[in-house]
């Protein structure tokens, strides 16, 4: 008769322990994560301290220390690209939040056909950003595009070009991004609005609170965590925005809409300055990571209230 020794895990006698099974299941994920996320990140950090050029593999790689970072952070061009990125991120998120919340408040009223309208509103975010970029170039066409026609229908703006004008081009990309991603913010806000129990509004009605007061004291505070989550996702995505803007303006006219990610791609795969562009990528990564940390901390505080 087999005697089980005290202290020895019972599972071992029957097979693998729970912990071993857990490790077997998660190890492929960990290996994949290391191979496609962690290793490239560490490799990029290493390359950012070298003069490596990916189109010259035989060339000896020299350690240059923080030279790439010094050149990047002393460059007026890079500074301008980051300002263009800030303009794009800031304004597009502002419009998306205002319009997204407004649309969510409208859709939340149970009127006839609201489901069909919701589906229609959600259509733009289901499209590929590159496709959106291409067809908005047709919409913005000065001669045949519908955008100029609509503007001229309401105000006599004459002949103008949205993506060819230095003053209008930054707003043209903001407009397209707002058109595409407002439904996403709306959807998240709608989830927040639907989670508010009716009895809170009923209690407010009993207390004779006005609609505006109900909005400021009930709706907005309860939707705020959802809204902040939407802003976090959109801010990170817009900071990395590439495909839509490349298709729409290619960074032009001049370099007025050249966002940080577009310039990064130019440096890495057109000029082949791999070390320099790696340093730029590290700067962008640390910025997004840092800003994301602040945001998550703030979000947790709002949730705890």
């Amino acid at each position, binding site marked *: 008769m087999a005697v089980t020794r005290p202290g020895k895990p019972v599972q071992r006698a029957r097979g693998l322990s729970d912990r071993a099974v857990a490790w077997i299941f998660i190890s492929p994920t960990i290996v994949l994560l290391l191979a496609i996320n962690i290793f490239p990140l560490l490799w990029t950090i290493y390359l950012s301290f070298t003069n490596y050029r990916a189109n010259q593999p035989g060339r000896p790689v020299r350690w240059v220390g923080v030279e790439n970072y010094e050149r990047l952070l002393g460059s007026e061009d890079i500074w301008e690209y980051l300002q263009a990125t800030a303009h794009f991120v800031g304004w597009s998120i502002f419009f998306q939040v205002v319009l997204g919340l407004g649309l969510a408040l409208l859709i939340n009223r149970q009127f006839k056909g609201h489901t069909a309208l919701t589906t229609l509103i959600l259509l733009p975010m289901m499209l590929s950003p590159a496709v959106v970029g291409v067809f908005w170039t047709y919409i913005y066409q000065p001669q045949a595009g519908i955008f100029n026609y609509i503007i001229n229908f309401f105000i006599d703006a004459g002949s103008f070009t949205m993506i060819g004008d230095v003053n209008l081009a930054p707003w043209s990309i903001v407009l397209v991004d707002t058109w595409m991603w407002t439904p996403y913010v709306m959807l998240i806000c709608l989830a927040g609005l639907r989670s508010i129990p009716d009895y809170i509004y009923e209690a407010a009605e009993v207390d004779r609170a006005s609609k505006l007061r109900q909005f400021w004291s009930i709706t907005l505070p309860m939707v705020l965590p959802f809204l902040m989550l939407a802003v976090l996702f959109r801010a990170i995505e817009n900071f990395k925005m590439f495909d839509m803007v490349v298709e729409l303006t290619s960074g032009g006219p001049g370099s007025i809409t050249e966002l940080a990610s577009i310039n990064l791609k130019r440096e890495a795969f057109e000029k082949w300055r791999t070390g320099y562009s790696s340093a730029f990528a590290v700067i962008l990564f640390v910025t997004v990571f*840092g800003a994301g940390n602040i945001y998550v901390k703030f979000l947790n505080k709002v949730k705890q209230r």
Partner: protein
Amino acid sequence: MSRVSHGPGQRRRFFRRGPWENAATALIGVGVFMLMQSFSLWLFGYSFAVILVGTIGFVIVSHFPEA
């Protein structure tokens, strides 16, 4: 000469997560602003260092005890 002793309680009070996390958050915020502002190239030049210190600091202090 008498020496002031710093007991574990005092050390714990000093290394609380709250104020340090706030300081790191403020540093990151200032750094991001410096990176994206449009009036001083000098501020832009030091922005990454500020963000980096803030971010590394945030990661470290988020492991401090709550109180």
